[in-house]
């Protein structure tokens, strides 16, 4: 079993068009590194200088990981991670 990662439209060019991919890791950070090895380029769209990008929302199951532990949030088999670009502007 692995962790399902749901990919938004704008990042599907990194996943060959797939809406969801699977990855492994014990924390969100490891999961993203694992994702990067399978889908090069994705990590840079999610992480900047060791932190989650401000305008990318990442959810573990039903929670925004910012309210959990950010990149250090533990993840486990069977979890679903959802990536949604923030809708924002001026």
């Amino acid at each position, binding site marked *: 079993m692995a962790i399902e990662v749901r990919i*938004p*439209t*704008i990042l599907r060019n990194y996943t060959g068009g797939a809406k969801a991919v699977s990855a492994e890791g014990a924390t969100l950070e490891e999961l993203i590194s694992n994702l990067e090895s399978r889908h090069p380029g994705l990590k840079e769209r999610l992480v900047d200088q060791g932190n989650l990008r401000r*305008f990318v*929302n990442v*959810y573990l199951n*039903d929670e*925004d990981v*910012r309210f959990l532990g950010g990149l250090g949030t533990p993840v486990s088999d069977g979890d679903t991670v*959802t990536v*949604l*670009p*923030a*809708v*924002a*502007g*001026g």
Partner: protein
Amino acid sequence: MLSISQELVDKIVAHARADHPDEACGVIAGRGGVPERFIPMENAERSPTFYRFDSMEQFRVWREMDDRDEEPVVIYHSHTATEAYPSRTDVSYASEPDAHYVLVSTRDENEVEFRSYRIVDGVITEEEVRFLP
């Protein structure tokens, strides 16, 4: 081109007026590119110059659209002191290449500007809006 019912236009404008001088924002969900379901969103920034969907509300709404096989056909927000044209920040955060980005300006008390754009890879393309009865 964006084809949208006058009823939905009126709802967007009413939301923008109600939140003035802060920016208002929201989504019209639909299928096959047809805007149908009006979803006003909270502007988590509560600001006259910036908007951002509340992350948990966005998660719920996006999941609901997914469950209903809908997509965000229109993403709207208001400008409260400037014209209804995408700002530099609007362009840098635009992340739904398939959406119509609708901008409403409430800077004039009596007249409303209602315009629509595609924003893809940093490029703004204004499109015609057809108002359906």
